[in-house]
């Protein structure tokens, strides 16, 4: 029996988000709620599936390094129709390109930013389920902050993110420099 991978465990999950962002953000920028069969052009939204804006929100939170706890009341939360493992698989959409690797990078960021006792996990003292829960929490909280950020901007200027370059500009504002590494550059071999 092949050993289970933490990546796969995580990828089979589906992050939660606050319902209040459905109308104000998700439906405005995604074709969320309208089915996956019609072409994006026909529907006129910037992004396709709802998870796409979630990804954007996530990265905003990530780069700002700001998290925001999800609302307690689970009734006020929702999930998307597709678990993470399918995110970015876009073959049939005109004018778009699939981006399957992005999931892996998200995972990478979550590992870096979640305080899991991996040694305990490795020893079996923590369940993999618990570890993935923690990763999901990080993911949800970064995204939640990202949504909050977007909502804030839209309150100031309702047209803000409807400008062609608005989303890109948010990401251009972050520092893109590659830091000097303090540790050895080569990772140790597995031997």
């Amino acid at each position, binding site marked *: 029996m092949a*050993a289970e*991978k*933490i*990546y796969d465990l995580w990828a089979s999950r589906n992050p939660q988000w606050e319902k209040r962002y459905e109308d104000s953000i998700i439906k405005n920028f995604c074709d969320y709620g309208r089915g996956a069969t019609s072409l994006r052009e026909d529907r006129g939204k*910037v*992004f396709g599936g709802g998870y*796409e804006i979630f*990804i*954007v929100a996530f*990265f905003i939170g*990530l*780069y700002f390094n700001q998290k925001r706890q999800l609302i307690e009341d689970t009734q006020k939360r929702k999930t998307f129709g597709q678990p993470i493992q399918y995110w*970015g698989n*876009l073959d049939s959409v005109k*004018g*778009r*390109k*699939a*981006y399957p*690797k*992005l999931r*892996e*990078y998200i995972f*990478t*960021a979550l*590992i*870096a*930013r979640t305080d899991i006792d*991996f*040694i305990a*996990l*490795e*020893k*079996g003292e923590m369940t*993999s389920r618990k*570890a993935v829960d923690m990763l999901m929490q990080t993911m949800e909280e970064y995204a939640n902050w990202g949504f909050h950020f977007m909502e804030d901007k839209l309150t100031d200027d309702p047209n803000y993110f409807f400008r*062609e*370059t*608005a*989303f*890109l500009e948010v*990401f*251009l504002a*972050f*520092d*893109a*420099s*590659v*830091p000097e*590494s*303090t*540790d050895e550059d*080569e*990772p*140790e071999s*597995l031997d």
Partner: protein
Amino acid sequence: MIIKEIKINNFRSYYGSNHLSLSKGLTLVIGDNGDGKTTLFEALEWLFDTTGENRKDSHISEKRKSELEIGEIDEVSVNITFEHDGEKEIEKSFTFERISEDNIRTRDYKFVGYFIDGAERHSIAGDKLLNMCFEPVIRKYCLFKGENELNVFDNDTALKTLVDTFSGIRDFEKLVELTTEFEHKSANAANRELQNDKKVSNQAKELNAQLNDVTNDIQSIKTELNQKKISINEFSSKLELLEKNQETSERYQAIKERIKGLKDKRAKLAAWSSCEYSTNLLDEYWILRSFPAIIKEFSAKVSALSKEKRRLDKQETERRAKEAGEREAISKIQKLANDAVPLPWNLPDEATMKEMIDDEICKVCGRPAPKGSEAYEFMCNKLNEYLAHIAAEANKNTATKEDDEKPLFPNSFINELHSRQIKLSGDTEQEISKIATTISDRLEFVTKRKADLAEVEKQLQELETEQNDLLMQSGLSAELLDKSISDLRGFFDAKSRAESRVSELETTLKFKESARAEIQEKLSQLEPTSSMTQVYQRVHTAFERITKAFSNAKEQNINNFLQMLETESNKYLQKLNKNDFYGIIRIRKTINNSARIELYSDNGTRIENPNGALKTTMYMSVLFAISQITTLKREQDYPLIFDAPTSSFGGFKEDTFYNVIDTIDKQCVIVTKDLLNIDKATGQKTLDSDTINKLSCSVYRIEKIEPFNDKDLSTIQTVVKQVR
């Protein structure tokens, strides 16, 4: 007909009453554009209009209109007095009354003529008098508004009209038609008789059949000939047009090429200047622009974890090795009485021991071992030891497995993460760190392309404007200018082909016609028995000859007329051009029963595009000639009134030109802006008095009086002043 005086009252810019006395020779009316030159003409046209009552608000002088109080009435009128078999007068007028601030009512339209009969002055309907003295067809060749009207042959019926009107013989056309019809009818009648006549009916029938066939052939040949000739005509004019416009066409084509090039460029730039800013965040991984730092965090963390894991693992491995070694070092030794070395544990075997225990006897030495005895106990212990040993061995195995295989780290998530880290490092990490540059390069690229696009759009617009201007200036259609050299060639070839076809057809036609003549001859030579039939034949022959005579006479008439026109025209041309080059006018009949005025140089070559002045004098000569011919035929003279034909008289000295016209025995009125000097800087207009003083004719000046406002018609008033 000699016009003595023209009176214009309240007609458009001619406020109040104005009059011009015309001389018997040339009267020059000088004015600038907008001073009232064309209005003078239009006043005369209005007077001469016999098509019906014509009183428009727009005919009334705005200035006069604006002065009227409510209830006040005034009159618009145009009047000429003239000599034409006695003194006569024609006037057209209507009254206008202001009935309210914004309303003018017109009525009392009058169009009346006067003539003197004996001592009395009689009045007559104006249109009647006009048609008697100055009928429409004559007027057509007397009034010329603008140079475009000077070419009298520019429409297809012109020649016929001219011939009918001026050649002195009318209605030839009709008679030729009639006689041709008679010829056919009589031919049919004669043939019918022949076919019925007993003696010759077979031959007659046969010959008639042949006649029919050849007549049909001739008909279709003539039709095709006509078509081909018309085509040749069309090709010729197209070629002429193309050649004339060669230069313009080339320019047009060049612009068109450039426009196409620019449009292609524009399409490319348009594609390059678009960018999917938002979806590229995902599709092109642009969202990972600031990710390198996070990769570093991840790598550091995972490296550390991996190291820690291995450290702990090593520690544990060492500890276990120690334990296992200790265990293996220990060996269990069995104790016996008299310290003898006991049998190994596996002797005797289980079955033997059990038998001995059951039989309660040691079967080795024979001593009984009853239950409870020392010997019995010893045997049981030995069996138990045997069993315990087996069990211990078994446990030892499993215990060893368990001890050996229970790892410190049952999971390999850290390994998974480590593999992931290794995968990330190297190329992948490098790629991601390039994303920032990729994005900025792309944005820069797009910005530049957008700028380029704007530039191209600007250039495109400029070119398109240039193209439109070219079209407008040349007055030609885009379609025509689009014709390239290959089209020119195409027309040329088509024309040549048509011409050779025409040649062929004409040869065939001649052949067929003589064949027909032969058949007809044979027919007429048939000697029918019946004398009646002979009569029919003779009648037909007579009609044939009569028809030919009429037809020839008609052609002769036209030719005579054209010849006469040509001769007279050349006389005038010579006079008008005096010592300058003038060439020779030829008037050629064209295919569609019209004529063309052409100019040839002395050595016989045609001058294709005579310059402005030459062209104008060419046409004017023809007009003078026509007028002269009219005089001869009608024994009546008619004035020629030209509206500004001299705008292209660049190369002529005005005094020479006008003096020549003055000497021509013909009443002429020329309305022009010649001899008016306009100061470019101040816009002031003054008469060229020096030249005017050299003139022999009478001269009038018409001008708008100052001050006036071009936008307010009620300030406009033309004033007529005699200068000479």
